[in-house]
């Protein structure tokens, strides 16, 4: 039992974070919003970092990293509000194909030649560029009605839901950070609004929600990587905890920004809209709640003090 990421894993995640901070700041989001969200140079940058081959075994030319590490990087993609479909391609489609033993198509994913993730029936609209374009509230999502075959494989769904949850945690952390920075500088009644307990306590609630969503995510990633029969329960738990933390933080961060939050001018809206979009992607709240309820109240999943890692 060793519930923590190695120094090496954390270093990898922080290098991705640094790269995205340098190359994918809010000025980039604004440019993508104006010019179209797909950007070959950004995609190529992610490919050059090796991220599309992150989960491909070293023997096959990949980085041979684990699913929990991929989740750690998906958090960073959420934090940077990445527009490219990296997470759905490299951390959902690739591990799915690996699990299926579908080696033939993996090469094209590893090199970044394939930029369209596998579609699943749970999502009526898929990320990608083929099919009829649909407009998302999130200006940086390229959403289309799928034309190719859609899968109904639960393993693909679980990977998708896990990584959606990871992105939501990153999105929530970014929004909390923005709200805190705003509350430090915005002055009213002769002091920064962040000095008022009414603001502090709301932001503290967001910190609590995020703090206790994160470990659920790692538990789910680990369960899925280990192929546990209970993995779907943990994935749904993670998606619920992450989604709830993200929506709470979006609403709170918006409130803290006051009227400025209602403008297109303030950065916050990109992350709020990502949270709104991703919370129902790869399974609605009700879908995931029902899966947990069925397992817990139905008795198929062991519970209690002596069943911590069932």
């Amino acid at each position, binding site marked *: 039992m060793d519930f923590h990421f190695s120094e090496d894993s954390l270093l990898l995640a922080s290098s991705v974070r640094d790269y995205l901070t340098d190359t994918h700041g809010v000025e980039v989001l604004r440019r993508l919003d104006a010019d179209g969200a797909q950007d070959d140079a950004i995609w190529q940058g992610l490919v050059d970092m090796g991220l599309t081959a992150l989960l491909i075994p070293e023997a096959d030319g990949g980085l041979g990293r684990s699913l929990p590490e991929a989740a750690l990087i998906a958090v960073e993609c959420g934090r940077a509000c990445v527009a490219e479909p990296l997470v759905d391609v490299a951390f959902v489609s690739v591990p799915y194909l690996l699990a299926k033993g579908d080696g033939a198509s993996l090469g094209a994913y590893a090199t970044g030649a394939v930029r369209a993730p596998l579609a699943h029936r749970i999502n009526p609209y898929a990320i990608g560029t083929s099919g009829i374009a649909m407009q998302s509230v999130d200006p940086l999502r390229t959403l289309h009605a799928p034309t190719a075959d859609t899968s109904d494989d639960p393993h693909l769904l679980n990977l998708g839901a896990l990584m959606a949850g990871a992105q939501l945690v990153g999105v929530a952390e970014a929004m909390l950070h923005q709200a805190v920075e705003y509350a430090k500088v915005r002055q009213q009644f002769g002091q920064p609004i962040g000095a008022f*307990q009414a603001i502090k306590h709301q932001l503290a609630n967001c910190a609590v929600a995020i703090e206790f969503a994160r470990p659920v995510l790692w538990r789910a990633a680990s369960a899925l990587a280990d192929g546990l029969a209970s993995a779907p329960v943990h994935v749904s738990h993670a998606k619920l905890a992450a989604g709830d933390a993200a929506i709470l933080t979006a609403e709170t961060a918006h409130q803290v920004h006051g009227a400025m939050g209602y403008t297109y001018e303030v950065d916050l809206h990109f992350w709020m809209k990502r949270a709104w979009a991703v919370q129902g992607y790869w399974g609605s709240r009700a879908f995931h709640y029902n899966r947990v309820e069925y397992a817990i109240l139905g008795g198929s999943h062991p519970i209690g003090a002596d069943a911590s890692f069932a």
Partner: protein
Amino acid sequence: MRLHFTAEQEAFRAEVRAWMARHVPKEPLITLECQWGFQQHVAWEKTLASGNWGMVTWPKTYGGRALDLIQWLIFEEEYFAAGGPNRANQNGIFLLGPTIMEFGSDEQKARFLPPMAAGEVIWAQAWSEPGAGSDMAAIRSTAIRDGDHYVINGQKTWSSRAAFADWGFGIFRTDPDSSRHKGLSFVLFDLNTPGITRRPIRQLHGETGFAELFFDDVRVPVENCLAGEGQGWNVAMATAGFERGLMLRSPGRFQATAKRLVDLYRQHQDAASPAAREAVVSAWMRAQAYCYNTYMVAAKIMAGGKIGAEASLNKIFWSELDRDMHRTAMQLLGAYAELKKFDDGSVNQWLEGYIFAHSGPIYAGSNEVQRNITAERLLGLPRVGAG
């Protein structure tokens, strides 16, 4: 990241499980907040000590088993899964014991730790005063040096276990001209010393677990001061850190409650609202989240890290989870919720638990203070007004 137990850890779990199955009382003990219940709980402490299960994380020298934090978590899981009673010795095991180990002299360790481990001396804490609750630096009780003694005068309140315990510990102002965090010292005292008056406070449930303490020229030897005069605030903060941090509330307790709540739901599901059903499922999810988080903190500490202000997040999370779970149980029980005992004579543990759960968001630093700490120290928001 490896989220399964080793064969050695599973063997240890089996050992704890077997011992608990043989020794945990079949009938729940009555509340430790009354004289007879307290005696039952002290007897249980001695039973635990007889199997060397009293202070499992302590070094062997002081009567412990030197368990690492993962073994401790396994112990706690099995303890609560077996329905183990609340710990009369809580203050000693998790608060004072570690504090003495960190700050005490060799003489103090030898004198105080073994009887604590054996369950022979039960400790009460004496932090709060009528004017110093959440704002502990406002302490006014004094301990003035007179030769080789301190002379203590003043009043402490909400002193948990003090109605029935043997010894107490708290912070006192040893420099009468000091203010706030300075000039305070951490002092241990025999609750039967002349000049101490205990006035038990009747609690919400009608019993008297905690007490007010009045000090009237109470003479305490100077060797009962921990870590030296004037160090009280630092020692108290370290103690509060142990308390709020990992060990005050281990996850097994809440996982056990969540499981009992699921059982209760099954008995009452025909009359349960969808909201109550979701609250039951949510109880399991939150208890599990708390468990995972605790294992992460344990791994961090075992790798040489420390817990700081994150402890405040923990305290907010478990105390509100506990209250929510018991509220849900009360709603499921409906008209039966108010009964102190059910038709079959069994105690309504949900009602007792619901009453007790109201103290969680208040003691060990109210959740408002924890939210301020979170906002200021973790998020970096500005401090205003606090000294």
